[in-house]
């Protein structure tokens, strides 16, 4: 591990199919460009996949043809990626797993973890705090996946004991347009809605437009999630409809890539587990979570 030794780092992430993964793509690309410029001896292979099968193929290709020394992977889904990533680790490569843990413990050298349970819990707690007397809320869920399940379960668990009633729950697929339409229908269906857990900033934007269209801005507020630039701006500005946000920063991929690169450019032994917490963003701390250059 001397400074001049060549090293190739493979980065495998999901394709930019919605806002958050778009952010992941951006931060990954940015970290790679920056590291490449700083350390000419480092080489990177970036592959994006639209489904788990393709991601496994990408990793196989990196092993067979690019001779990678390390792999940074944000698994599309935990389960299908477990065995293939294990094969990479077994071949003696350095493995960094990001966000979604693998189904078997002890495969990776480094784990940069997002915490979906915390994401749901923090969101739920905010609702309890904002609505001490209870009320009626609707929930928009993401694409049916384990991530979404973990978030929603934690959210529901943390609401237990309060008088907050979830009157409607539908999948908005982390998609603005879909969320807009679902919210329109929620608004037709429920004459009384006190708040919306959009569970994602992309969906929150769709929800807000639908609420505005119905002229019911004063009746309800919306909590999104992930820390999109535009939403943080609104929080900062004290928008009543957007009282807060919960982070789930796509920049965790950049952290993971930098940490992995460090292993090859410095002698620092990198291993272990870094949990990127989900934090509640309020007007008070909004500045800390505001990245004006990010596309997300």
């Amino acid at each position, binding site marked *: 591990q001397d400074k001049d030794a060549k090293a190739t780092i493979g980065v495998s992430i999901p*394709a*930019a*199919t*919605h*806002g958050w*993964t*778009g*952010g*992941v*793509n*951006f931060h990954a*690309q940015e970290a790679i460009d920056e590291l490449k410029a700083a350390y000419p001896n480092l080489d990177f292979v970036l592959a994006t996949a639209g489904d788990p099968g393709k991601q496994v193929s990408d990793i196989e290709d990196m092993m067979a043809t690019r001779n990678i020394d390390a792999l940074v992977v944000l698994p599309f889904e935990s389960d299908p990626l477990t065995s293939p990533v294990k094969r990479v680790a077994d071949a003696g490569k350095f493995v960094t797993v990001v966000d979604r843990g693998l189904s078997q413990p002890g495969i990776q050298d480094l784990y940069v973890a997002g915490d979906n349970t915390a994401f749901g819990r923090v969101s739920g707690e905010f609702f309890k705090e904002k609505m001490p007397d209870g009320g009626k809320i609707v929930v928009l*869920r993401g694409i*049916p996946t384990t991530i979404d399940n973990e978030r929603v379960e934690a959210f529901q668990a943390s609401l237990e004991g309060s008088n907050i009633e979830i009157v*409607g*729950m*539908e*999948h908005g697929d*982390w*998609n*603005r*347009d879909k969320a*807009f*339409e*679902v919210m*329109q*229908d*929620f*608004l*037709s*269906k429920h004459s009384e809605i006190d708040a919306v857990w959009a569970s994602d900033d*992309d969906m929150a*934007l*769709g929800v807000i*437009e639908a609420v505005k*269209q*119905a002229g019911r801005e004063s009746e309800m507020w919306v909590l999104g999630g992930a820390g999109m630039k*535009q939403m943080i701006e609104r929080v900062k500005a004290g928008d009543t409809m957007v009282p807060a946000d919960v982070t789930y920063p796509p920049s965790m991929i950049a952290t993971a890539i930098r940490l992995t690169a460090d292993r090859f450019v410095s002698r620092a032994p990198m291993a272990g587990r870094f949990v990127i917490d989900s934090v509640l963003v309020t007007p008070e701390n909004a500045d800390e979570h505001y990245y004006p250059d*990010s*596309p*997300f």
Partner: protein
Amino acid sequence: MSAEAKVEPQRRRFAVDLHVIGPLLALLALVILGMSLNDQFLSAGNVTNVLARSAFIGVIAVGATFVITIGGLDLSVGSMSAFLAGVTIIVLNSLIPIAGGGWGTIILGMAACLLLGLGAGFLNGILITKGRIEAFIVTLGTLGIFRSLVVWLADGGTLSLDFNLREVYRPVYYGGLAGIAWPIIVFALVAIIGEIVMRRTAYGRHCAAIGSNEQVARYSAIHVDRVRLATYMLQGLLVGIATVMYVPRLGSASSTTGILWELEAIAAVIIGGTVLKGGFGRVWGTVVGVVILSLIDNILNLTDLVSPYLNGAIQGVIIILAVVLQRGRKGA
């Protein structure tokens, strides 16, 4: 001879009636279902929502009706729309310093969107006619190309329209005339013009002839390639019109914009009674098909009869039933 001529038309009117009534029956069944499940279903607000959001797919599906009638297919419409939306937003944002933040800018942006739509349609059309490549392959290719380009333009994220400009542009989706939302008006106009063009113009006749038997069309001195190219350009223009209405809705474009619209448009066209292999098209049927698809979503959202996981299954079953309803009639 004369006796025959007297009897025939009657028989025909009867047969046609049943065929015509098919998609309408399916629509009626859905409306009754919706009414029985939720009393807000027929409220002005809900009806406006359903129709206004059908408008994008609807306008595109009118184009798809022509494309399918000539025996073609356009899989690229959804990502073309995303691409157009992206470029339009970039154009609008960059015009603000030059043309200001008013209607002038917006009209220029709209014009750019429509022109680009024509251009995109031209690209598809020229590859299909001059390149002699199957429409399926060409538009599958351009699907990937347009989608990729918008992701690239947005750097993987979302392209957002300037907030001030958005306020000016907003009424194009949210506003209306005499209480009817603009998208509904535009959709209705496009559908009516489309139906007239299909039924009453030489171009419409030529489309049907080409889809029915290309050789016969060629031997009847129809410029097959020219009509075909025009049809893909028409499709592009209509995608442009849909996009012009789409941009003010959320003011953004990203990789998720217009995803799977192509499938929805084709499904609407076929539910409406147009023949997938070409030769016969029915624009009003497409309109009914679009509304049916849109209603299915709406009804599923308005009720919680089933696990949301099963929405897709219910949708699938209703689509099949809607078609059974009309085919059953036809066979009767």
